């Protein structure tokens, strides 16, 4: 084995021994980092799950064309023929006001409400699927249909997808800000831990330097210590996130099944999870680097 590799192995061994010697303190540090990191990671996982659902809606956008309540059946059929004749329309399905009411009555908890209404307040409607899927084209089409005879109101599902998209972008920005703040916090935590470690090892550092240890040799174990602490924090954050999502999914499953959906909050992708642990380790290393640069230089007897 080369001397260089042996020195790194020694430094890693020294760092692991330090962690083992201070198990509870090391665990608490990793826990603080883990909890801090699990917040943006959790936000990211929730957002990814919701965006997945939003994309499924947006992929199959519907335009609901509601007729005026007073419109007669021939008018509705004329509108249908015009819709079906339009090149931009892939499919148009007629939903009578009676059918719409039956669907509403079938919905959970709404039967009593419908019964209380006495008469059917719903209009006839055409459910249109367009050939285009991009929101701008859909909205242009909807606006045009809205001006046709007998049409009272046109609603585009993609508007919701678009709003959801804007909301997701805002949420993503918020999560990014949170992650950046907590990354600073993580660096500060490591900075301070390494500072304390340097102070407790003051004698060893001073003596090592006096009898011929290079700066790199003295610094190395602290870098490993910081990186290991960050890695441990990252792994703990994943564990916290996994347990939290599992607990949340108990509730989500029930809710989704009542809507006939198999929607679940998904854990991070393996690549994302790995990247997060690596990022955490890197931040630990950075904190250690800053601390070591700041405190070792002023201590060395040169």
């Amino acid at each position: 084995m080369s001397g260089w590799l042996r020195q790194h192995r020694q430094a890693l061994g020294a760092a692991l021994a330090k962690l083992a010697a201070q198990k509870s303190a090391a665990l608490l540090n990793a826990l603080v980092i883990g909890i801090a990191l699990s917040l943006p990671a959790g936000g990211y996982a929730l957002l990814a799950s919701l965006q997945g659902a939003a994309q499924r809606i947006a992929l199959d956008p519907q335009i609901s064309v509601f007729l005026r309540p007073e419109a007669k059946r021939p008018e509705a059929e004329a509108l249908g023929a015009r819709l079906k004749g339009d090149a931009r329309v892939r499919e148009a399905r007629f939903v009578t006001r009676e059918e719409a009411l039956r669907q509403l009555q079938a919905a959970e908890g709404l039967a009593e409400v419908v019964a209380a209404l006495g008469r059917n307040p719903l209009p006839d409607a055409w459910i249109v699927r367009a050939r285009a899927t991009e929101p701008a084209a859909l909205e242009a089409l909807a606006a045009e249909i809205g001006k046709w005879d007998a049409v009272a109101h046109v609603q585009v599902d993609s508007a919701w997808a678009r709003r959801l998209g804007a909301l997701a972008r805002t949420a993503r920005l918020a999560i990014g800000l949170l992650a950046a703040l907590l990354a600073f916090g993580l660096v500060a935590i490591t900075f301070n831990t390494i500072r304390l470690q340097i102070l407790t090892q003051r004698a060893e550092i001073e003596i090592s330097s006096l009898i011929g240890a290079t700066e790199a040799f003295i610094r190395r174990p602290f870098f490993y210590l910081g990186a290991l602490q960050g890695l441990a924090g990252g792994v703990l954050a994943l564990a916290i996130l996994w347990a939290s999502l599992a607990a949340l999914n108990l509730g989500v499953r029930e809710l989704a099944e009542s809507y006939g959906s198999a929607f679940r909050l998904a854990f991070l992708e393996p690549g994302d999870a790995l990247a997060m642990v690596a990022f955490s380790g890197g931040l630990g290393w950075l904190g250690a680097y800053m601390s070591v640069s700041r405190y070792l230089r002023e201590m060395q007897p040169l």
Partner: protein
Amino acid sequence: MISFSGVAKRYPGGQEALKGVSFSIEPGELAFVAGHSGAGKTTLLKLIPAIERPSAGAVLVNGQNVGALKRAAVPYLRRNLGLVFQDQKLLYDRSVYDNVMLPLAFSGLATREAARRARAALDKVGLLARERANPIQLSGGEQQRLAIARAVVNRPSILIADEPTANLDADAANAILEIFLAFHQVGVTVLIATHDEALIGRYARRVLRLAQGRLAA
């Protein structure tokens, strides 16, 4: 070989510890640096491993001007020197054995060879039986011997000791001196600072006598 020519050392604040010091020590020589406390003995010794840098003049160690060494080169200079400090600088959070292993950790030696050398060094100073002990359990003389074992474990060609017999009774002090003599006899250059005139008198060796920072003839 150690050579000082016109060396002065002025500490920040204006205190002049050494003034115009010139001398030369041949390879394999044993010499004492004598003088009262405050005469500049410790400063003189600290210039050799570049713990302090001279304000003027040149300090040569094995032909190398150590006063002009780059910071990054200093560790390699120190590895070739055996240093015994006035306050010993032992680590009390580890065993006698681990104290001696410390300088071997950064020399990149294989573990087995390092262990062999550490035990050989402890054996030379008569502490092999105490390798599992903590330095705090050792007597003053034993602690000093441990400091010597750590200094020689890298097999330096030059051994420098600052007041190695301070606070020791005459028997313990003699035992320490005998160890230095043994290294001197196998060709190691030895430089010992002491204020103990009786000790210097017992061993008729070259003496560099310092008084108020100047070398007396």
